[in-house]
């Protein structure tokens, strides 16, 4: 439909200034850090003459005016040239590409798990409003929200890896494993994924439980639910097709916002579980003062958040037919 295509196009155009602002901010952060690249390299080598520093600055284009440096920076980004990590001895772009899949796998699994269980518990809580079950779900989800992720992660390792020995405690694959085929490898990754994904999902799960519960209760009171009942539909059909379908709208909105926040969570969880993703790369970059790498990760994750929010907006428009009118 042309109206929905127009909507997609408009949202894309709206995302452009945001992307520019992020690139600018990133560049300013790079410039605002005390000392430049030449200082960093000189610091690494232990000693350097002023001439050597001068050469370095010329080599990395640091001797030209700032606005030209910015243009160079943008040009670099357009070619996915995010600079060089001297600590890791690799281009930042390559490092990020290498770690990105692991983080995406972890984040998506965690979000899907949180959505599935959170919405389910939210529906159950709303259906049994005021009962002991409702209270129990509310208490547990509040605890999930309030408990620090790293602590939950450590406790899960103690319970499931050390005491019960059911699941591996760290990494993404078994070191030195001899896989018999693709399936075997995936299964191994899956086993490693369980604990970090569950840990990461706990925080979001509690949010979903609360939002689903309140959205369901709100929709329950609306007139069209009464209409649905008056049609003689079964309770399951009323709940799923009429109540939950409408309660999904705030859930989708929040998921969009959460997907940005989940990146912060991956830094902690990946560190605790030794998961070889972008979050742990960011943590390594912070501790080794690898400014280039850190800013590259910032930039990359910012763009991911923009794209995801765009996708969520489009999904929202697909779920709520009234969006085209509201614009």
């Amino acid at each position, binding site marked *: 439909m042309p109206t929905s295509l127009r909507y997609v196009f408009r949202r894309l155009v709206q995302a452009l200034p945001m992307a520019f602002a992020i690139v600018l901010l990133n560049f300013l952060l790079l410039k605002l850090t005390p000392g430049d690249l030449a200082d960093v390299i000189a610091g690494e080598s232990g000693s350097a003459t002023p001439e050597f520093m001068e050469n370095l600055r010329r080599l990395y284009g640091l001797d030209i005016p700032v606005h030209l440096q910015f243009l160079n920076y943008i040009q670099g980004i357009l070619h996915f040239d995010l600079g060089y990590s001297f600590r890791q001895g690799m281009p930042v772009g390559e490092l990020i590409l290498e770690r990105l899949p692991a983080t995406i796998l972890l984040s998506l699994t965690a979000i899907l798990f949180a959505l599935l269980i959170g919405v389910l518990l939210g529906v159950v809580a709303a259906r049994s409003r005021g009962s002991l079950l409702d209270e129990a779900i509310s208490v547990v989800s509040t605890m999930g929200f309030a408990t620090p992720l790293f602590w939950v992660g450590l406790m899960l390792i103690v319970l499931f890896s050390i005491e019960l020995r059911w699941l591996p405690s760290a990494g993404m694959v078994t070191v030195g494993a001899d896989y018999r085929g693709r399936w075997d490898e995936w299964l191994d990754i899956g086993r490693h994924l369980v604990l970090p994904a569950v840990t990461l999902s706990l925080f979001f799960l509690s949010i979903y439980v609360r939002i689903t519960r309140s959205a369901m209760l709100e929709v329950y009171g609306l007139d069209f639910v009464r*209409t649905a009942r008056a049609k*003689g539909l079964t309770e399951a059909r009323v709940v799923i097709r009429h109540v939950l379908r409408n309660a999904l709208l705030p859930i989708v909105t929040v998921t969009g916002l959460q997907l940005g926040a989940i990146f912060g969570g991956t830094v902690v969880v990946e560190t605790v579980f030794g998961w070889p993703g972008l979050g742990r790369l960011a943590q390594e970059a912070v501790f080794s003062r690898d400014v280039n790498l850190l800013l590259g990760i910032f930039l990359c994750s910012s763009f991911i958040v923009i794209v995801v929010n765009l996708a969520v907006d489009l999904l929202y428009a697909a779920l709520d037919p009234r969006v085209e009118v509201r614009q």
Partner: protein
Amino acid sequence: MSLLEVEDLTVRFGDAVVVDRLSFSVEAGETLAIVGESGCGKSMTALALTRLVAPPGRIGGRVRLDGLDLTGLPEARMRAVRGDRVGIVFQDPMSALNPVLTVGEQVAEAVRAHSPLGARAARARAAELLDLVHIPDAHRRLDDHPHRFSGGMRQRVAIAIAIAANPSLLIADEPTTALDVTIQAQILCLLDELRRDLGMGLILITHDLGVVAETADRVLVMYAGRKVEEQDTPGLFAAPLHPYTRRLMGAKPRLTLGEPPPRQRLQEIPGLVPLPGAIPPGCAFAPRCADADAGCATVPPLQRHGRAAVACHKVELPAWTPRQVPRWTDRSQWRAAE
């Protein structure tokens, strides 16, 4: 046997009695209007008839539809009755439809709830129903969402949903209150037309006496959850019996086409309908009634006079001889008599 027989219908929320021992009947093809101010239990009566009263509300008494006792029916069988034998149209068409489903999906859903039709056949039937309620270009509009329809059109869709399974009884709870005056008349005509064509009994819940005069065969006046008067429509307008009914009539502006409006104040009824749970002992209307005296301290019994009934200590009904009260089931008859 009447199409619908209601005996001592009672709805309570804890100690608060919202509908108090209400009895009435509706014949096939007949329109019964239930009137009263807001908060006197009309809508709760509609919900109670189909057992849609939300918890913690409790329903008592007996409701028989086509001889089937609905009060004792297990919930699963009650579901089979809802939407199939009884259709309901609610007050606010702007919120009565699900905003995220297309109109076609919502009508077809009502069709499929009570028939073995497949998706395609149900869709065709939905188009037929939209056509029946005079939605122009029905086939093309099946895929539109409710926000693309005006209030009057949405009410037509709601009516199409209510009659989807050819119910023998249609309950319309203030179907025109949320609509413009011109649209109100169209919706009333449509309801009347459907009642006639499909042979349904119609319960029309309203606070608008103009609506009553135009559509109803019989009127039941409710006050504070109780029936205070019941009459054939011409009888009610010619000689309202209960002081409450008389005051309701006095509160209604009288306009005649071609004449300037009378320059006199409308007669308001002082005070408010008592809240359920705070209903005064004795006659519930007594605190607002000009005729009330010490004799009104007990609940007035319902005096019957043929098909007319009134509950007031101050009204004496004449001895009833069956010939006096004609049965007005055909509206053209009483319009001619007016």
